[in-house]
């Protein structure tokens, strides 16, 4: 077969379109902006009148949040601000820090690890979609269906659906406490409430909420698109990752454990 290569007549856009941000060029220099608007609101006004969380919500949803929405998002951001020093993503940040990696790389490195599907950003979209699909159904029936159609792995944790499962073989009761606390802050949070009921149904199987499930439920209640979930989860976890990475940055390489040869076991 003779192979010819020809350009397709695809119509690419001549300009990039955005609904988010409008920059007004200065009269002196068309590359410089002398005003910026976010969904129509002047950025300098937002600086004066709104909180960071409100503007974050605006950026991702297109409208300013209600007081309850802002409260729910801010509380979730505090709850998940730090995956904790034992979390593999945080440890990646610490290794970057102690290894004297360029500090600008601490976040990209650790957020890449946090992008995984196990307790990471990659599971958030699936968790939001699961909640959206099932939250009008009876949580008990959904739990039965989930248990019938999924098989517990021979070893390790089991997450039969994204956002719910076991942590180190047990129910993560701290996640449940966070979910309860978040629910107490708002009048209504349908996905979060349904998730609590679903977690109750999973209890007999030693399964429950995972932090990713809570994030997904709140994102769903706040109306974020499922595709936004991964990045939002990374964003709200980033402060803890950065803090732990920077904490190690001035310490010698010997500050973190380095397994001895006896602790390094070669398997066939």
């Amino acid at each position, binding site marked *: *077969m003779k*192979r*010819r*290569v*020809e*350009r*397709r007549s*695809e119509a690419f856009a001549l*300009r*990039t*379109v*955005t*609904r*988010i*941000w*409008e*920059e*007004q*060029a200065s009269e002196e220099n*068309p*590359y*410089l*902006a002398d005003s910026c*608007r976010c*969904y*129509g*609101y*002047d950025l300098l*006004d*937002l600086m004066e*009148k*709104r909180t960071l969380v*409100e503007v974050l919500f605006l950026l991702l949803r*297109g409208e*300013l949040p*209600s*007081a*309850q929405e802002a*409260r729910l998002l801010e509380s979730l951001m505090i709850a998940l601000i730090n995956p904790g020093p034992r979390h593999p993503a945080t440890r990646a940040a610490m290794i970057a820090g102690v290894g004297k990696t*360029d500090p*600008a*790389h601490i976040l*990209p490195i650790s957020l*890449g690890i946090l992008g995984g599907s196990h307790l990471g950003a990659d599971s958030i979209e699936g968790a939001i979609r699961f909640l959206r699909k099932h939250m009008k159904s009876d949580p008990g029936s959904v739990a039965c269906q989930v248990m019938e159609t999924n098989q517990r792995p021979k*070893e*390790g944790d089991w997450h039969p659906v994204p956002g719910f499962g076991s942590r*180190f*073989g*047990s129910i993560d009761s701290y996640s449940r406490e966070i979910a309860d606390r978040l629910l107490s802050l708002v009048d209504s949070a349908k996905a979060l409430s349904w998730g609590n009921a679903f977690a109750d149904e999973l209890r*007999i*199987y*030693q399964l429950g909420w995972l932090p990713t499930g809570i994030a997904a439920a709140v994102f769903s209640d706040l109306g974020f698109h499922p595709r936004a979930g991964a990045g939002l989860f990374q964003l709200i976890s980033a402060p803890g990752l950065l803090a732990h990475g920077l904490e190690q940055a001035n310490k010698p390489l010997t500050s973190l454990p380095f*397994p001895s*040869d006896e*602790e*390094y*076991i*070669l*398997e*066939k």
Partner: protein
Amino acid sequence: MKNKKETDVFQLWDEHRGKIRSRKGGWLIGKGVLCHGYDMMEDLVGKYSYFQVLILNATGRMVEKRVADWFEAIYICLSWPDPRIWCNRVGALGGTMRSSPVAATVAGILAGDSKAYGQKPLVEGLNFIQSALAEKKKGLSTRDIVAAECSRHGGKPQIMGYARPIAKGDERIVAMEKVAGDLGFPVGEHLELAYEIERVLAEEFDESMNINGYMSAFLSDQGFTPQEVYRICAILVASGVTACYIDAFERPPETFLPLRCEDMEYQGPPPREVPPREKS
């Protein structure tokens, strides 16, 4: 559920606590470096090619040199220094902003982890041709296979490994066919089917195979799984990204595709006053 003693619940993690277990190899300080059973300095360095060791690390198997040479050739084919290509443009943007070459190259590689192009579609490409051959062996005709796949995409010829954005036809296949011929590889059953599919698509839709389709079929004939190929190809786009990074880096900052304010088209809400915050 089976009742377990309390400590049994986290026994698995206790077994791994404070230890690293490896099935790949490691540095036995003062004794040597092991890599999948080979002594790295004695057995591998200078004796096997970099791509043989890359494939060894990605699959656990030491492949014959001509397979590694074929991979090296496809790495050349699949990364070229044109910053209009999406992953390369990321590299160029890194150059214009004075990112480090490592950060920009890694960012470009990450961009290639895409459903639309780059490394990830190889998984779908290998899955398709391997399942297509299984269907063919069950008695389906090539035309049936194409029809079934097209029907999943609203009748359009959107089969992974066929057609491509921007251009029709793929010059890389010609180059790789020559490489495969020079290395003495025969056309296997997956590649034979891939050509048959191409003939059907050419007749019905005037579309042809792309490099993903050729690569997926060839590597299926060599016994690779989709995940193995994805892993071997993790850094597939790196060299073109680095080239585009350097091109932009060697020019003044922000001169790579600079945008005036007017070059963005704003289609959001018109200017509005920030409303007073509602009482909570």
